[in-house]
Structure formats: C-alpha cells, structure tokens
C-alpha cells in the first residue's frame, strides 16, 4: 500500500468513526415547538448505550497517549531523563515542556498554567510529560521509565497564609489570584440584632460520567490539526490550543465529541494540547482517554471556601447591613478563580434587599488541586453562608424561616450591594410562597409500608423508625446568568432554509443540557417547518461561547432565534414578491406563510421549493462593567431566582441522613421545554444534595485521598429525594425568548435547605458542608 493510500484509508476510517460520533452527538430529527417537550434527539441512544461519547472515538493507525503526573504537591524539578521511555519498543513520542512550540502556558483568564511543568510542580497530578505509543500498556511502561528527579518542597496548603502573606510565593504571579472588596452605604450601620458565624464548604467534583477523551488528527505536513473532543467551548479551546502549538487559530479545527456531562469541568484545557502535540509530533492520529482517577486530578473543581458572615437587622428581622469575609482556595493555577470570587462576593447578600455592606474576598493560590468552574460558580459557597445566616437571624428575631425571607425578599428595581439595579423579573416572593404551597410529603418516617430502605442508612438497615427525627429547612438563591464584568460572551448561529427544511449550524457545545432539542424547537416555531437538520458542532462557524453560566438557552437560543428571524424576512420578501403582497403583512401560521390582511396561505415547504435562504446572527447580551475598588458597578448581565424546601429524616446517633423530599419553585422566565427544565431541576438537586451530605474531595497534606468512586460518593437513587417543582413563568423582557437559564439555580439553594433541615431535626449548629455523620453524631 502506498503512503498516499494509507493516508486515505486512515482518513476514511477516521471519517466513518467521527461521522458516527457526530451523528450521535447531534442525533435524529425531533418534533415539537417552543413550549412542547419533545424527546431529546440523543436520548434513546444514550439510554440504550449506543451513543458515541468522545471516549469511543478511534481512527485507523491511531496511537495511544498518556500523561506523566507529579506525585508531589510542591517540588522543584531537578532533572528529567526520558531515555528509558524512548528505549521501549512501540513508543513513538515522548514530550515535555521543551517540546511545546508556542506559549508554554494556558488558562481561561490568566494564562499561568503550564502545558507541562518545567521548573516546579505545584499540585499532585500536574502534567510533567506525555507519551504516545502503540498500546496503552506500552504507554504505562513508558511513563514508568521516565526518571524525574524532584527536590520536594513544603507545600502551601493553608489559604490564610496567602491572605496574610506569610508564605513565600509558589508562583511568579504570587499567591493571591484576586482580592475584591465591596463597600456600600453606611459601613457603621447596626441593627437591634446581630448574628455571625463562619462557614466552610468542601471541594466538590463535577464527577461527570463521560471521562475526558480526545482524538487528534494531524494535517499532512503538520501544518494544522483536527481535534475531536468533549468540551464546553470549542472556540476558546481552539484559541488556547493554537497559542500553545504556535499555529494560527484557523489551523486548529475542533469538532465536538459526544459529551457525557460537564458541569464546568470541561471549561478549562485538560488533555487538548497534549493530544494535539503528540499527533503533530508523530504525524499520526493520537487518542488520550483519562481514567477516573486521572479525571479527578486532571480537571478543575469547585472552590473550597471559608466564609465569615455577620448580619445586622432590626428586631422585625429586616436586614440593615451584611458583612462578609470570603477566602476561596483556588489551588495551584488561576483558571476562573477571579471570576468565581466575584460571583461569591457579589451574591453573598442573597436574594434579599440590603442597603449597607462591607465584604472582603480573596481567591488564593495553594498547592491543592486547581479549582475553577462548577455549576453555581461561586454562588453555591456564598448561598450556603447567607442561607445559614438567614435561619440564625430568624431564630434571633423569633420568626420562622419563611417569614424572615419574605420580609427581606428583593424585587425588580432593588439595588444590589454593588449598586447594580435588578432590572430582570425578580419573583423572589413568588418562589418562596409557591414553594411553601407545595404539599409536604404525606409519607411517615420510613414510608407508608415501613420499608427500611427508606430510612436513613438505607440498605445498611442501621435504624428503626423510632430512632429517626424529621426536619424541614429552607434555602433561597439569586444567581447571575451569562458572563460578567465587561465580557462579551456572544453566540453565533447560521440558518439555511431550503425546500422546507431548516439546517442549523452553531458551535454550541451540547453537554447534556438539551440545546440540540431546543434549537429545533426554535426553528420550527419561527419558520413553520417540521424538518430541522442540525449540522456538526464544530469551529467552522462563529463562537457560541461556553455552555456554562446558565447561558446557552438565552445566548445560543437568541442566536438561533435571530438567524431564523432573518431567514424568515427573506422568505417573506420572496413570497411577497411572488404574490404581490407587502412582506410586512406576512406571518407564519402553523406550517404556512399567511397574509394577515388577506387570503393568501402558502405552505412553507412550497414557498421554499428550489429556494435557499440563509443568514447568520450573533446574539450579544447587554454590556456589563468591571467592579471598582469598592466593588461598585453593573457587573452582571441578568439574574434568576429559586427557592428550595427540604424535608430530611435524620438518625441523630449515627449521623445518617435520608433526604425525603425537596420542593422547589424556580424563576424560569418561560419554560421553552418543560421536561428539560424539570430534568435540570432534578439533576441540580441531586448535585446539591451530594454537596450537602457526601460529596467532597479529601486532600491531606496536598494529596488527594479519594480520587475514585469508592470514596468520592455521589448520590444514588436511594439518596435522591422526591422532587416536587413549580415553574414560575414570568417571561423576562430582557431575554430573547423570555426564558432564563435554568441549569445552575437548582444546585445552589438545595444544599443549604438540606443542611437547615438536618439542623431542624437535631437542634445542632452545622456550619460545614458536606455534613459528615460525625458532625451530626457528636
């Protein structure tokens, strides 16, 4: 076989495999318009196991890639000897920092994270080298054969030592990622009542089930590379990868591989640059797929935080002033720490009106695992603190938890502690009242039939009914939507209407949230078509921004809607010209173009026969500002609200918990796909329950002790409460489709609601999540 035909056969096989993955990522057509709940195009394949995730990608003649990682939280690299790896038969490439042709570092905001560590390693798991070989076992032996000599240094593991400056810098950019203060109103204001406490939030992992995986295919001659990868933001990945590879952006082409969950952990670069480098070095396709342990080490996590709060209020429970001191442990590299911090400090007042505030926040660098985006993005931490405080305040004022929240609920027109006016629909009161109106569980402790599996301890049969106490707790949250502080996170979509079929092209990462379903609903509603084709999700169209910050329904939904409307104008112009009708009189009714002032009615399929209408639209949200030194400024784009009420059964002696029910009313603007909204609510609550009672990455002396699913526990079905939900539908005039993002709020105040319910059951003060059995039992 000639070299050319080998190349052709590799390409053909890659294409077949990739086509299958892309088809699987995009899926078959669905029916349904806005407000319906059509079945997801990728749903059946995912349930049946035929969906191709990025870990299923392969190409003829591909090599396996693997990564050598630091065993030390902090050490100086004295020397690296690669000769042992090169000596192994089947090893095709061994690369280190010396082999990075372009920018040696990457990062979403501040590019401080090395592609490979060169002088220092700063966390356990930091990449030091990578290999490509003909078999995973060869890779393993090659990694073992690399000799790295380290000078082990004392790790920085106490974030307070970053704040007080007592630890020497562990990175040239120092040990503080960002410090932000908010000062508003009368800083000396006091009330009749004052409550304060310090709260701690542990490190949660996104724990998506589809592990990191990518396939890179080099262009002939190494002038470019094609990368198939599970990510949240194709264009940002491309930009960072291209800089490291020293290639122009357009020479790096990304296609979305099937994504098995993201939750923020795929926003940063992990294996992307390594995979491309190995492919370019060897001239062959290279595939890297992480194990679960490697995944825990290889992506960013939710920031552990320590938050002191003091509330001053009138004796009637009206908040006079909020004080807070927030320290977030960002781990070894910046990632999005500075933005996470801003979310924490600007949301620490909660969804409550407040005139006066003094808030101090730090995001700091330590030798822990790097932290960045995770569903809730800084607000989860703030919410656990402010909601715990609201209960403390209620107790101090002799009010119940619902009343204290109603008295302080913010509304449209109120000013935040940043000075920003809430211009969105802000149905905080409605969220609380509608949640309170939902029925409490009618089942007694242990269920109607006394099933011991429904008691705390579940299958372990640890308790009898008489040992159990029930509690009820509340949580209410405010969450910003989209990006903040002047960032223009626009989204692009292109729509082609031809012969009654609409083709949609966008780079919006489908990570499970269901945009592939929603995009079709929008096109059907605006264009009056049944058939919608989704083109591959890749970088051959403009950026869609990140699938994060609860933003894609608003942003990419707005882009698809905008492009469809432009195309509809072309259609109306065409129909108007053909039939001699002013296009302004035309509208879509069902599947037809109709004259609103006459009898004309033309099926869209007929009107578009032999015609091609195409347009592209970029949706930009309104501009935002950076905060000034006193934390003042219109830094956020929009807000959404939610309330949660948890009913929890607790075994006080053993400290075991069964969350029985979570009731919630969520401000969704408009439910474009009610089933998807409920899915987001249930999934978010599962994640919130997980943080409340079990999910935590345990690091001792900078070493992760539970990078596996034996010891990092996620809720099972038996841990998942019944969820009763009400959607508060008040379409937001600022949102392109009236719909707010719904992904993050469910996981934010569900956590404090569960903890409050545990407190209610046992009468103990709990100031840390996750709540451990020993926290309850002792």
């Amino acid at each position: 076989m000639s070299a050319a035909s080998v190349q052709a056969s590799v390409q053909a096989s890659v294409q077949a495999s990739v086509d299958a993955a892309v088809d699987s990522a995009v899926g078959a057509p669905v029916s349904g318009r806005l407000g319906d709940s059509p079945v997801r195009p990728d749903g059946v394949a995912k349930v049946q196991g035929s969906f191709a995730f990025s870990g299923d990608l392969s190409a003829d003649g591909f090599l396996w890639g693997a990564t050598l990682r630091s065993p030390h939280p902090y050490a100086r690299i004295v020397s690296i000897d690669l000769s042992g790896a090169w000596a192994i038969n089947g090893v095709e490439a061994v690369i280190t920092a010396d082999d990075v042709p372009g920018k040696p570092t990457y990062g979403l905001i501040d590019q401080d994270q090395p592609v490979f560590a060169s002088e220092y390693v700063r966390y356990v798991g930091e990449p030091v080298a990578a290999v490509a070989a003909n078999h995973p076992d060869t890779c393993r032996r090659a990694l073992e054969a690399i000799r790295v000599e380290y000078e082990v240094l004392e790790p920085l593991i106490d974030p307070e030592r970053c704040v007080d400056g007592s630890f020497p810098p562990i990175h040239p950019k120092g040990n503080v990622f960002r410090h932000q203060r908010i000062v508003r109103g009368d800083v000396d204001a006091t009330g009749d009542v004052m409550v304060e406490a310090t709260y701690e939030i542990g490190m949660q992992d996104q724990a998506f089930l589809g592990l990191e995986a990518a396939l890179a295919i080099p262009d002939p001659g190494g002038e470019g590379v094609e990368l198939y990868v599970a990510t949240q933001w194709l264009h940002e990945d491309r930009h960072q990868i291209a800089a490291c590879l020293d290639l122009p952006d357009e020479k790096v082409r990304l296609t979305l591989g099937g994504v098995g969950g993201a939750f923020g952990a795929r926003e940063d670069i992990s294996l992307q640059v390594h995979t491309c480098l190995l492919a370019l070095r060897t001239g062959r396709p290279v595939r890297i797929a992480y194990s679960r342990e490697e995944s825990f080490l290889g992506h960013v996590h939710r920031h552990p935080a320590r938050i002191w709060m003091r509330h001053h209020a009138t004796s009637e429970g009206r908040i006079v002033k909020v004080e807070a001191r927030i320290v977030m442990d960002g781990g070894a590299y910046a990632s999005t720490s500075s933005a996470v911090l801003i979310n924490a400090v600007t949301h620490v007042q909660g969804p409550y009106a407040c005139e006066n505030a003094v808030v101090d926040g730090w995001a700091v660098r330590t030798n822990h695992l790097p932290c960045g985006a995770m569903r809730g993005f800084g607000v989860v931490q703030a919410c656990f603190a402010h909601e715990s405080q609201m209960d403390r305040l209620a107790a101090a004022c002799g009010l119940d938890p619902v009343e204290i929240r109603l008295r302080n609920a913010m509304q449209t027109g109120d000013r935040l502690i940043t000075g920003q006016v809430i211009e969105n629909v802000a149905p905080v009161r409605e969220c609380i009242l509608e949640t309170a109106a939902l029925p409490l569980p009618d089942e007694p402790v242990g269920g109607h039939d006394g099933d011991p599996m429904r008691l705390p301890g579940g299958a372990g049969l640890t308790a009898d009914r008489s040992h159990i106490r029930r509690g009820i707790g509340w949580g209410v949250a405010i969450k910003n939507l989209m990006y903040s502080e002047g960032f223009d996170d626009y989204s692009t979509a292109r729509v082609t209407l031809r012969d009654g079929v609409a083709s949609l092209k966008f780079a919006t990462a489908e990570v499970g949230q269901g945009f592939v379903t929603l995009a079709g609903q929008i096109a059907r509603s605006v264009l009056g078509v049944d058939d919608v084709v989704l083109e591959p999700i890749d970088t051959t169209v403009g950026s869609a921004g990140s699938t994060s910050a609860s933003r894609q329904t608003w942003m990419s939904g707005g882009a698809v809607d905008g492009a469809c409307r432009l195309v509809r104008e072309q259609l109306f112009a065409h129909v108007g010209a053909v039939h001699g009708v002013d296009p302004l009189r035309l509208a879509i009714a069902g599947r037809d173009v109709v004259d609103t002032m006459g009898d004309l009615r033309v099926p869209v399929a007929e009107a578009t026969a032999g015609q091609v209408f195409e347009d592209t639209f970029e949706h930009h949200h309104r501009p935002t500002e950076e905060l000034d030194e006193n934390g003042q400024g219109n830094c956020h784009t929009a807000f959404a609200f939610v309330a949660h009420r948890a009913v929890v059964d607790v075994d006080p002696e053993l400290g075991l918990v069964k969350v029985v029910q979570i009731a919630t009313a969520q401000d969704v603007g408009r439910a474009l796909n009610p089933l998807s909204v409920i899915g987001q609510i249930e999934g978010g609550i599962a994640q919130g329950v997980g943080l409340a009672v079990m999910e935590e990455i345990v690091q001792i002396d900078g070493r992760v002790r539970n990078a596996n699913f034996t010891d990092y526990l996620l809720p099972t079905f038996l841990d998942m409460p019944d969820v009763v939900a009400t959607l508060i539908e008040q379409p937001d005039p600022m949102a392109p489709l009236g719909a707010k993002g719904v992904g993050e709020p469910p996981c934010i105040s569900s956590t404090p609601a569960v903890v409050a319910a545990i407190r209610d059951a046992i009468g103990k003060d709990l100031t840390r999540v996750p709540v451990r059995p020993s926290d309850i039992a002792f």
Partner: protein
Amino acid sequence: MSVTVALTLDEALTALATDPAATVLAGGTDLMVELNGGHRRAASVVAVNRVRELRSWRHDPAAGTLWLGAAVTYTEIAQEPIAALVPALAQAARTVGSPQIRNAATLGGNVGTASPAGDGLPVLAALDAVVHLASAGATRDVPFAEFATGPKRTVLQPGELITGVTVPVLHGYQGYSKVGVRNAMVIATASACLAVDVASRSVRFAMGSVGPVILRAPEAEAIAAAAADFDAGTIPSEVVERFGAAAGAAARPIDDHRSTAAYRRRAIEVLARRLLARAFPAGAPIGGDA
C-alpha cells in the same frame, strides 16, 4: 497475560499447581478494580467463576449446616432459599455494591480479598464459619477467625484455592447492619452482625471496618448471654447499654480519610445496641415499637 478458564475444580487446581503464582479470578469485582487502577499486576489468571462445583451450595438439615461454594454470588445469597437459612448473610448481601456487582461478586472472593470492610465477613465471623481450602492433592479447613491475618492478608498458600464456606444453620435471631456515608452501594464505615443461637444459649457479635481483621466482641457476647432470657426472647434494657459499650470497647478502629476512630467506635456501640434490641425486642430500652 495468560488466562485459564477452568470448568471443573480439578482443572482449576491443576492450573494453580502448575502456576502457583497465578491470580484467581471469580467475580472480578475486587480484582478488576485493582488491575484497572494499576494497583496490581497479574501475569497469569485462573478464572474459577465457571467451575460448577464452586457455584453450588448444599444444606444439610441433619448436621444443621450450610455449605456455600466459593463462586456462589451475592445475588443468590440475597434470595431464597439461602436467605432463609442465613438471614444475616442475606442482609449483608443486599448491601454489596449494586445489583450488577452482586450478580458477579462471590462469597469466596469476599473471603479471599479479606478486606476489613468486606460486607459478608462479619456474618461469617459471628457464625464461626469454616473456610474450605484445596490444592492439587490436598484439602484443609480453616476456622474463619484464623483465615485472615491482617488487612487483605490470609493464610492462603500459593496454589491453594478457596472452595467454599460452611456455616451453621442456627435457631434464633440474626441481623446485620452496615454504616456508610451513602444509603446504598457504599463501602462500610462500620458494620456488625449479631447472631443468637438459642440451642447453645449464646449471642455472637462480630464487627467490620474497625480493626485490621473482622473482630468479635467476647465480653459483650458474655454480657448478653448471661442476661438474656432465651425462651422468652427478652433482655433487661440496661443490659442493652452495657452490651453496646462493651462492643465499642472491643473495636480497634483507626482514623483515615473515610472516617474517624471515634465515629467508628460510636457506630459500633449504636449498631450493637440496636441489633440486640432487635434480637430481644421486649427488653429494648428504645425502639420498642420496632
């Protein structure tokens, strides 16, 4: 890696005689995790999960014993008819992993791995089970209490295979409880089995995850046996407290990333009290309606 799939016990023992260093594979629920995680290497494997003799079990009513082949799965143990003969073992079986794991996981594997957190092991300890071992040309029986010598260390010799376990079929209450940080599919933070043998007027209590091996609590057992009215099924309620304290005192827990020694000891005290109260419900100080 060479893999021998044995279909008979002789084939398995011959393979192990030829290659005593071979790794034995039954359900693979422990082994595959270790292999995939790179914590263990296996140059050669002898798979025993298709050995018919090891997949069977036998109840001998005359002797009052139940012999369970080493490759009997936890799914089988969780169900009738085995569940009626050793109820505590069935309860333990229902806490093992998920249904998929229980379909593969075997009793022999649980015994052979000898983890202090092995879910079925406190039951075997409480019942004074006998572990049957065989090698080419020889067999021997080892009391369960002597089988494990430390965490994941046993008296099993190279070339030797666990063929099964014999437990007595007792008359009297038996129960198992397991504490974990999740309501299902969780590794034990502490576990316990209590078994009453009316015939011998004895109460047996064994504990998991609170020592290097599964522990018994002889002082607690003596306290309960002395105070119980085995015919009426009652025990003075103050004895329940003493029993719990004595059980807790017999635990030898450690601090690790999963929990603290103090919590584990507390958990054993609570489980001991609750299990004894279930065994003798009339005398329970709490949970009187249970």
